[in-house]
């Protein structure tokens, strides 16, 4: 059996799972009102994590990706503060543009490095951004952040009850589009080249491809996804704070990617759903131990299901077949 057949056989059930997941996010919140916000957050974060998963294909881990998340969020916040008014679509466009531009600038520097050095430089950039957001109090309102007033959509203004569903379905549409787009990208020649950076960068260079350029493209896409996710979260939460760009946030995104399984785009959403639900319910029932629970869940996943939640399914199938 060729590798390609194996891939499609592996991917199909996961795609089905993804479709089911998106359907559930669309329907379930209609029955439990507070799920609207929960699912919107899951989807928005899933979009960010999609960017991390994308870079994971190239074997690179960014420990500063929260910077693009923060840039997206603060773009809306600044617009609301200094220009006023606003529309979900406008915010998304602006957040997408600003994070792409930043992604390109930072990317030009970081794609020269690999592995720990790549991660470190990303971390350094994000910490600079974080310190600036914290310290430029007159402009950023410091640690308390900037409020993001509830925007309309295409000129329509919504009541709070309707708005939580509006933003849910906007997030859902974008998440589904991002998922499809990233899938297509990874299956495209560019996506294959991105994977080649992990497996054999030198061979890529022999083929006349600039590994840096391939990685830069991936990096900018991933920054763009981070910015879009950040914009959505800022709109959902109606606030942008420096915490959005702190290193623990970056760590959380990587955490979610590994939790879900970094090998497949759907891992981003599976991980985000797991993460937010554990945190949501652990915080609800064991308010002072939610970190402990999340930490233990992560350790168990890493030690016993190295391919994340997605891998769990495969492991089950493999053991079912009894083969190795």
């Amino acid at each position, binding site marked *: 059996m060729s590798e390609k057949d194996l891939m499609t056989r592996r991917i199909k059930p996961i795609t089905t799972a993804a479709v089911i997941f998106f359907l559930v996010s669309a329907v379930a919140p209609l029955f439990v*009102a507070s799920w609207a*916000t*929960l699912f919107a957050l899951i989807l928005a974060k899933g979009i960010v994590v999609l960017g991390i998963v994308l870079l994971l294909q190239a074997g690179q881990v960014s420990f500063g990706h929260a910077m693009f998340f923060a840039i997206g969020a603060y773009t809306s916040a600044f617009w609301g503060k200094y220009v006023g008014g606003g529309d979900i679509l406008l915010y998304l466009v602006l957040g997408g543009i600003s994070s792409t531009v930043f992604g390109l600038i930072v990317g030009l520097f970081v794609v020269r490095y690999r592995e720990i050095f790549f991660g470190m430089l990303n971390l350094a950039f994000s910490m600079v951004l974080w310190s600036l957001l914290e310290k430029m109090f007159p402009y950023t309102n*410091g640690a*308390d952040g900037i409020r993001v007033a509830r925007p309309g959509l295409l000129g329509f203004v919504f009541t709070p009850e309707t708005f939580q569903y509006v933003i849910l379905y906007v997030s859902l549409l974008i998440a589904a589009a991002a998922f499809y787009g990233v899938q297509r990208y990874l299956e495209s020649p560019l996506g294959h080249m991105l994977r080649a950076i992990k497996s054999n960068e030198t061979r890529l260079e022999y083929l006349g491809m600039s590994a840096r350029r391939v990685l830069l493209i991936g990096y900018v896409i991933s920054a763009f996804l981070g910015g879009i996710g950040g914009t959505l979260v800022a709109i*959902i939460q109606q606030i942008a704070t420096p915490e959005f760009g702190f290193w623990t946030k970056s760590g959380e995104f990587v955490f979610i990617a590994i939790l879900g399984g970094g090998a497949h785009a759907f891992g981003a959403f599976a991980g985000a759903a797991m993460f*937010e639900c554990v945190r*949501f319910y652990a*915080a609800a029932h064991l*308010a002072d131990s939610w970190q402990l629970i999340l930490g233990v869940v992560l350790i168990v996943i890493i030690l016993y299901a190295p391919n994340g939640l997605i891998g769990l399914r495969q492991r089950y199938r493999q053991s079912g077949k009894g083969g190795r």
Partner: protein
Amino acid sequence: MQYLKTAFAAAAATAIFAGAALAQGKPQEIKIGIATFLSGPASVFGVPAKAAAEMIAEDLNKKGGIGGVPVKLSFIDEGAGGEALVSNYRRIVQDDKVDATFAAISSGSCNQLVPVAEDLKVMNFMWDCGAASILETKKYRYNFRTQANGTPEMLAVLIYLLKTKPDFKTIAVVNQDYAWGRESWEIFSTALKAMKPDVQVVAELFPKFGAPDYSTEVSRLLALRPDVVLTTAWGGDLDTLVRQAGQRGLLQQSTFVLGIGESSIQRLGKDLPEGLIVGARGDHWFLHPEKKNDPAFKAFNEAFKAKTGAWPIYPVYHMAQAFTALQTAYDKAIKANDGNWPTREQVVDATAGTEFATGFGRPVTLRPEDNQGLEAQLVGVTKSFPGYDFKLLDNMMIFDPKVITNPAGVRSVEWLKTLKPEFAKMDVPTFKQ
């Protein structure tokens, strides 16, 4: 769009059912959701406040609850971070259907939750957060502040300083770098400039929130020798600053003003010298000069000490205020409704303009124009007394909130600019310990 309509219909139907159920008769319980810090540095306030809430609720239920209905509490952690806080807040309001919420301690959390409460049409008491701006920029229906804000708190401390040390020439500030640290200094310095324009500000230091080390700041202040050093830091940060400053003689060299130091006095114990000016974010002091012989007040303090091992600090009293405000509002609403159980909206109507008294300090009024609480302010100076292994407050002044709070509709800073030096000469009663 179909989904949206369904959702909207579902939400509306739930609202109607809930409303109908309430109007029919007494509910089983009044559910209160409380946002407080259970993790992070601000849990120095949040955890004692949680203990107080549990104690007060138990006591209240023993006495039959509010209007004969027991209260039931649920807590959410402000320290869990932005998304978790908002989603949990939405959960307790939308799923658990709490009747009222008390949120929150930090101004940051209030900034996040106040609009959500307004959106969800649930009555919320800002039970501890002090940023003046929230209620000055927008008129809310469902949000009330059951205590003072930064403006009267800082103004009281400043007037106390001007009254007791009228001749100082230089001042420096060391505040935590976040909204409270910045805003409190803006209030203080604006008022100072208006009332005593000759004072020179020699240093404005805003070390990072949670900074573990202030050695460099202390060195700089030792070299600058300002007459007065103001800090509105709290919790571990204040403890560290005071200890590092004390160890190196800075507390002896300059007059220290601890804007909200009441909450650290017991922890600092012997490390806190005499002669520091301490504010209390309200008239909160477990030996409140007007209440210290009141049996209910003494009983509450003793019970709290027995439960937690420490005397109550201001967040504890702030929590008590939120409960009393809620009880007063319900009682008022029941009365207005001819003894029938009121709807949520009727309770909100009744809350506006309420005056309530915990008995642990002077009464508080919720100003109807902007839902701002008018709360007296107590400021004192540290002094040793036998029988206590920490300092007590002496020469306490209690300020009338109507005089030192900015009028509704006028922004704090604008109002502070209009103050005259004579303002500080107001009559304020002084109490010995």
